[in-house]
């Protein structure tokens, strides 16, 4: 078994294990740290797939931004009316129905999708891709083929920023 494949399984198991822990634990803060481990493992898997930019962006956005925000939220709202917030399992039947449907749908989609990947790029461990990084290709694609989605994404972010600024202003406009 080659080391890349072995590492893939290690990080894959970590991601799945931490995600399972996140769902199972009652402590909201521990759940957030479980999410952190899942996201870090995903970044490692991206590295194994030679997607260096995606991996670092994953670290930057999810670990440095989203998880910190979630932790902040949990810490500021952990004690409501004097007792700690715990995640409890409610809506068991409807919840598992939704989960099973989602899982089935996604599995069907993933298995039947026709991927645009080159056939078996990683035949052996010594077989490295020619370019040093994926960022140059990503940059060129973003301002040519995918210019419209890129601009739309920035527009959505701008709207979110304006919304946040509006919500947090002191005097409310009636």
């Amino acid at each position, binding site marked *: 078994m080659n080391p890349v494949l072995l590492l893939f399984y290690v990080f894959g198991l970590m991601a799945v294990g931490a995600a399972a822990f996140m769902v199972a634990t009652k402590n909201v803060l521990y759940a957030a*740290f479980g999410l952190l481990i899942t996201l870090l493992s995903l970044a490692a898997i991206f590295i194994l797939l030679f997607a260096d930019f995606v991996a670092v962006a994953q670290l930057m956005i999810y670990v440095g931004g989203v998880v910190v925000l979630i932790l*902040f939220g949990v*810490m500021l709202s952990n004690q409501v009316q004097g007792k700690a917030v715990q995640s409890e399992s409610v809506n068991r039947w409807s919840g598992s129905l939704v989960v099973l449907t989602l899982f089935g749908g996604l599995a069907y989609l993933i298995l039947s999708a026709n991927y645009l990947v080159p056939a078996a790029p990683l035949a052996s461990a010594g077989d490295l891709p020619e370019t040093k990084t994926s960022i140059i290709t990503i940059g060129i694609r973003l301002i040519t083929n995918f210019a419209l989605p890129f601009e739309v994404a920035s527009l959505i972010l701008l709207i979110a920023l304006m919304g946040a600024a509006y919500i947090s202003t002191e005097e409310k406009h009636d």
Partner: protein
Amino acid sequence: MLALLLCLVFLLLIVIITTYAERKVAAFIQDRLGPTESGPHGILQSVADVLKLLQKEDIIPAAADKPLFTLAPIIMFAAVRAGFGVIPITPSVIASGAYLGVFYLLAIISLDVIGLLMAGWGSNNKYAVLGAMRSVGQIVSYEIPAGLAVLCVVMISQSLDLQEISFQQGILMNQFSGLEKEANYLFGLKALNLDVTFIGGITTWNIFRMPFLFIAFIIYFISSLAECNRAPFDIPEAESELVAGFHVEYSGFRFAAMFLAEYSMMVLVSLVAVVLFLGSWNTPFPNIGPATLATWTTGTPGTWTGHLWGVVWLLSKTVILIYTQIWIRWTFPRLRVDQLMHLCWKVFTPIMLVLVLLTGLWRLWMI
């Protein structure tokens, strides 16, 4: 593996020296003597402190969240430590030549924030939680002007590879694969038609290639002070109101690890500032006519002269920046939280946004 060990030993050494320097400089600024007892002029004081810390009992408060409390110092140190991997030491020595160097560095340092939050929350102490909250708010805010300053350099250099950025700032530029045909012009302006590729020295440093980067450097430096919770931005640890902030419950080895993480962070941000703005391992002396000062003080890359000069220049510039950090700490009073946020969001961020625009224009004049 060897690089890891070497870097760890080097870090321990530099942290021990920095703590001693911190106390002596503080004493000098406050017209005191500082440590004098252990060793001549007290130079063994930091060693004694380290030995004392290692012998101490590892106390974990009964009401603390044990897993978080014990893991936090390790995560903080590991995050800072991981950042050192992409820093070039000499023209031919770099632990990881990852192409995304700068981006990776900015991302991995953000893990430090997670460690801080774990420490603050795990201690189950209101001072610790307040300190962690303040610290994280401060670090996350100041990442924005610091990140924009780094972005300016990346736009000028057209590269995220710290080694490539280093090569661009000196006379060895054409020896880097991919830069063979590049040329440096004075102030980066091609219209001036003054080729300084082989003059090197300070004329090819990034703060000289694009003079407005000097403003970016100052802003980066101030933001980096806030990112390592140094005075005048040490409100997370403010002794007079929060005792010690997020590390109030820590003792013994765990405290030593946190302390090491904080001082390593100081070293790391100074190294990054040097690599990005102040010419990395390049010599400050230019070649002037027959007096080829730059060539004399660069050595041949790959041989021991190249290594030695590279380390000497990189470290001496870093030491100057660390000294400045200490100097500022003992000169300025602490800022209030609102002043801190005002400085970040209403002063630095707009200035940096304008500078990013200006850098884009400048890049057009460079080619």
